């Protein structure tokens, strides 16, 4: 089997396999999820300098880093939602490492999201995608491409009266992906795996509800999905090994065949 890995190394070196970074830079002003403020808030990302070749440390540069588990490009573990609280190995420190590398299907929802901030991905749309690209394999990530990552600041958060207005899946789509296709997880370019108005769906926040209830994962605030083929990319998503962590910011990488990136 080592031959496969050698072949992979060779392909990477030759550019036949390329690495695409699906991660936003972790910055202090990147929008985070907005909940009614009487709930406990997530700490934002903070990068505080200890020293930078100065009196506090003449030869070295380092920072103190703090953030909530669900900030920046981040991973949701099953324990993040009440439906996944009893899942075995449902936190980021215990989840099976083999789940950290998996293939991806990329669903192009760019046009629909451009014309409707509240666009909901449906089972019918997914079946249409399958008609072109074939069945979504079990154990794969399904990534909802909206090009939302091209937006910045207020346009990215898109908060209006009534909350955030961002696209996401409806309950039927997620149930079908989980139950009929056995996906590993669902990823988006927006702040949540659910639509901005997902709290008004039935059940509220269906992606969180069904994904985590079935032990599946979430990825959000992804970028560069436009550099991935509809099928065939390999995702490497390994969250920080936080003790009993419900998720974490992480570096998400995709391996793609050289001619598709």
């Amino acid at each position: 089997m080592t031959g496969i890995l050698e072949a992979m190394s060779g392909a990477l070196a030759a550019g036949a396999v390329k690495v695409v970074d699906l991660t936003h830079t972790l910055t202090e002003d990147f929008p985070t999820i907005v909940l009614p403020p009487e709930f406990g808030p997530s700490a934002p990302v903070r990068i505080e300098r200890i020293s930078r070749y100065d009196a506090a440390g003449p030869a070295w540069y380092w920072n103190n880093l703090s953030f909530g588990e669900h900030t920046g490009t981040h991973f949701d573990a099953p324990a993040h939602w009440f439906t996944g609280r009893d899942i075995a190995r449902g936190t980021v420190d215990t989840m099976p490492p083999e789940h950290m590398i998996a293939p991806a299907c990329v669903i192009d929802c760019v046009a629909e999201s451009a014309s409707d901030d509240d666009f909901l991905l449906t089972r019918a749309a997914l079946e249409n995608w399958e008609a072109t690209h074939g069945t979504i394999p079990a154990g794969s990530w399904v990534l909802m491409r909206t090009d939302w990552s091209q937006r910045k600041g207020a346009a990215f958060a898109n908060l209006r009266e009534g909350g955030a207005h961002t696209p996401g899946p409806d309950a039927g789509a997620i149930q079908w992906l989980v139950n009929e296709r056995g996906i590993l997880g669902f990823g988006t370019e927006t702040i949540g795996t659910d639509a901005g108005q997902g709290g008004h769906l039935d059940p509220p926040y269906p992606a969180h509800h069904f994904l985590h209830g079935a032990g599946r994962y979430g990825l959000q605030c992804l970028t560069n999905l436009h550099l991935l083929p509809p099928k065939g990319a390999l995702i490497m998503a390994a969250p920080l090994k936080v003790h009993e962590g419900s998720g974490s910011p992480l570096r998400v990488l995709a391996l793609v065949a050289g001619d598709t990136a």
Partner: protein
Amino acid sequence: MTVERPRKNPLHRTRQPLLPPGARSRKAHLLTVAAAEGRFALPRCGDCGTYAWPMPEACPNCLSADITAADAPVGAVLLADTSAEVPADPYFRERAPWRVGLAQMDCGPIALVHLHPAPQAGDRLKLTLMLDRAGQAVLHAGPENGGDMRTDKQWQEMVADPRGRRVLITDARHVAALPLARKLADAGAAGIFMGLPEGWKPLENRADFEAVPGLTFVALDLASDRSVEDLVRDIGGKVEILINTADNPRPGGLMAPASATHARMAMEVVAFGLMRLARALGPALAGRGADGGDGAPGAVAWVNVLSVFARATPPEMAGYAAAHAAALSLSHSLRAQLAVGGVRLMTVLTGPTEDDWFQLAPQPKVTGKALADAVVGGLMRGLEEVVVGDVARDLMARLAENPKAVEHDLSQGKL
């Protein structure tokens, strides 16, 4: 209306801060308290009731050592006046000529006073106990009817008039931010930088802010090192008055589920935010305390708008009160450090404000406009300590009288 501010000539050295003589006896600080709060008080003998000036160690009438600062009538008559043309003291030399007078106070003592340009010998005067640039209590005499204080450069040396100055307000989301901006524009501020944290969240009354003349939004999140430092890199040399309105009120006692999270956020904004501001902007402000060249008034004041709960803790706002208590403590350190540049730190303690976070607090609550009036009024009078709203004033008076009673009242939910 906003006032056009002359641009700095880059060939001129920024004038370095000098201060008037600052030595006083410990007893004389009885007057500093009154001046800081804007009260007119004079030394008075507790035994025979005789007023004195300056602060004596014993009564000049009966030699009693029982001297306190007591409220006194503000009237006086000008006996004589003169101008110090070439004072020996470097601070006054730079600002000469300096007009002084001998005032016969209605309550007895004769005092040497800083004198407004208008009064002549024999005229009636109105006395004000003020803090000078060294933070010491001094007497100023103006016309009995008030007079035009803009023409009195000595008065202007001791107050923090926004006219011609640029003001940074740190948080547009505070209930007083918009009224403050309007009030400052009316007072002739040369510009208003309005800090906006988390600009990706909507600001509901943005259009009202944008209608204020001379107002510019700037990104500023006091909970972020980078945000504070970046802003100061941009405009640190263009701020003459800072008004820190950043706050994070969240109700919740010590045993509330998210108490530590909310307290931490409050600390990050209110206490550590103040530290970040002090570290980044403090040196720039203190260094420009005497920058008055080219007709452009220099840096003059730092205002911390804090909750009166910094002094007395309602148990249901434990973390919030602790954050404000921390900020109040930091204010004292900051005051000492700004003082070397002659920049005044004004603490504004407010009662519960008229906004959603204090919905359940009893009336009378402090409106944004009342708070703005108090802040700008305090600047115009050169105060260091301002208490706003009946609730806050009442709490402070009760604290001075019996702090244990206040603690018990607050523990029973009585403000």
